[in-house]
């Protein structure tokens, strides 16, 4: 217990961080908006890296994509992502004619080994009921407008089956490598309430 670690307390580290931050803003080296945008991107979108890597692999490797759609659990395990408690992972593929979206009408079943923690709205009763009844309106509220000719399929997760959406690869992303592609795959795109980021947002 008396082991004396020579590390600084959180209070001091917090003070140093705030000092650094305020000076960087004061000197015009950085804007608070840039930092806020970046942090929220990491917390909300780029966090679910495991799923993003699965999707990126499927985009570059047609054989992997076939295995993923065939047996989601096994293909995801190939990349070393496990922790599934016996649930079966089913990957559903978006095409120009079909858009998939995932929910859990009963509670908040979620493919956490690939997507991390569910967003707050996923557990919201309004999302859970309305996405089944009026998926097009709900998706439009997320900013995703789908043509009338696109069929919307809503997948209700359960304790036994968890769904992951394989979004369409963004146009113009042909030259990107797997890492750069993974950076375009957002959590929301894998739930099916948005599209991946535009290829232009990659380097």
């Amino acid at each position, binding site marked *: 217990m008396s082991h004396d*670690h*020579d*590390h*600084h307390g*959180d209070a001091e*580290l*917090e*003070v*140093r*961080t*705030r*000092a*650094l*931050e*305020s*000076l*960087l803003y004061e*000197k015009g*080296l*950085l*804007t608070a908006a*840039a*930092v*806020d945008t*970046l*942090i929220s*991107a*990491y*917390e909300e979108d*780029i*966090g*679910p*890296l*495991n*799923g993003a890597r699965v999707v990126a692999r499927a985009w570059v490797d047609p054989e992997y994509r076939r295995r993923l759609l065939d047996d989601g659990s096994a293909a995801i395990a190939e990349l070393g*992502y496990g*922790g599934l408690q016996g649930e079966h992972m089913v990957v559903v593929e978006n095409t120009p004619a079909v858009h998939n979206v995932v929910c859990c009408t009963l509670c908040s079943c979620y493919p*956490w*080994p*690939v*997507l*991390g*923690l569910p967003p707050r709205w996923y557990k919201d009763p309004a999302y859970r009921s309305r996405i089944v009844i009026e998926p097009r309106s709900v998706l439009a509220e997320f900013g995703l407008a789908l043509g009338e000719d696109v069929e919307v399929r809503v997948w209700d997760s359960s304790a036994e089956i968890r769904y992951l959406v394989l979004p369409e690869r963004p146009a113009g992303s042909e030259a990107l*490598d797997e*890492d*750069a592609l*993974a*950076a375009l795959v957002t959590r929301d795109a894998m739930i099916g309430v948005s599209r991946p980021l535009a290829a232009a947002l*990659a*380097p």
Partner: protein
Amino acid sequence: MSVQAQVNALSGAQAPPRSNGELVFEEPWQARVFGLAIALVQAQGLDWEEFRRRLIEEIAAGQDAGGGYYEHWLAALERLVIERGLLREAELEHEAARVAGADRHEHDAPGG
């Protein structure tokens, strides 16, 4: 590769703590300092390697001291801004003393 992809590529001892693939911040300042480093590298057009090299050094130097991952991250970022001449060390120390002083003042205030 984008800076974000380079962050994602940090591996081993250099990799930020994650849970279920998602970054884990134990305290709000950890998220701030994480974002500051990446945003600064982007805003100033620096090479991510300049930060990463210092992070590696700080992690190696701090291994026996028991500091946390983001303590090393902060130390690496402080060194980067000082060594690149963006801020002076004395300035940082002065500002830290001011922030700490303002904190104490707030804590003394009733209802603060």
